[in-house]
């Protein structure tokens, strides 16, 4: 019977397809079909019989345990970063299963047991993931096709800075979120209108340094 077959198939989905397991599955299916036929013979209607048979199937975990079938192994990875600053050693573990960071000190004591960062969200919102490769592509294109290597290289650090500051602006308003785009605007203005590409580029690294100092 197709419904029972599908049901049993679904239940056995995690079982290895060894001869022993296929045999077991087939035996259980036949047992259920026999029960179903008996119930019909007893005067039950098809729905009642089907409901009873499925209710009497039980819990597949019981069988998994009896046959020592491990729950499906999930890909597990652990990334560890060790930081050693002024003699204080800190270890940060990122666990792929929990999507949580575990921060511990040298003695393996958890300082803050679990910090739940917006690891996933953070990644999604990273504008730089899209825009940095685009600016690299534009840079290479303008260099190879039009021979304009010189000012266009500035696109890359600029894109990185702008996207990063926009990203930070979304999370919490910070100094760099206003200052960096402003600096870029000034740089573009001085370069394009006054031809001062050369000394004006200094504004970008200077801004970056200043904002990173203020961030603390």
């Amino acid at each position: 019977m197709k419904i029972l077959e599908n049901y049993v198939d679904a239940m056995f989905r995690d079982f290895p397809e060894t001869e022993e397991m296929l045999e077991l599955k087939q035996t259980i299916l036949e047992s259920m079909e026999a029960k179903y036929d008996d119930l019909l013979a007893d005067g039950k209607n098809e729905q009642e019989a089907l409901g009873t048979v499925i209710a009497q199937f039980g819990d597949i975990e019981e069988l998994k345990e009896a046959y020592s079938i491990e729950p499906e192994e999930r890909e597990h990875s652990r990334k560890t970063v060790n930081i050693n600053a002024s003699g204080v050693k800190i270890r940060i573990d990122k666990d792929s299963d929990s999507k949580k960071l575990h921060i511990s000190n040298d003695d393996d004591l958890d300082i803050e047991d679990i910090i739940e960062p917006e690891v996933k969200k953070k990644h999604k919102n990273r504008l730089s993931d899209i825009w940095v490769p685009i600016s690299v592509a534009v840079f290479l294109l303008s260099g190879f096709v039009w021979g304009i290597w010189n000012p266009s290289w500035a696109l890359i650090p600029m894109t990185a800075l702008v996207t990063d500051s926009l990203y930070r602006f979304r999370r919490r308003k910070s100094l760099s979120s206003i200052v960096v785009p402003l600096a870029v605007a000034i740089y573009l203005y001085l370069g394009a209108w006054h031809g001062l590409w050369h000394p004006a580029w200094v504004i970008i690294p200077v801004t970056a340094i200043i904002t990173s100092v203020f961030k603390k």
Partner: protein
Amino acid sequence: MDTISSDVIRGYNDTIILSLLNRGDSYGYEVSKRIEEMTKGNYQIKETTLYSAFARLQKKELITAYYGEETNGRRRTYYKITDVGRDYYLEKCREWALTKDVINTFIERNG
């Protein structure tokens, strides 16, 4: 009361199955049907409970499995109790007699 809950009877499924196999070799569906008939429908063993018990009992060498004659193009797996299985069963019978006494001590007094 409809049927007995699997939680209550859990520790005794192996004993029930051994008791039936002690009367003669049998196969899955027959064991399940016998349990239902003998308890007048008060206990219906689940498929997963029954077949995990068979697996467990085989691992402990309390029963063995063999293929019966082919019917409708399918050979059926029969189970047979071993000598170790019989000893284990008798021990479980004694244990149950004691368990029943202990529980009754409390149930009868309050019931």
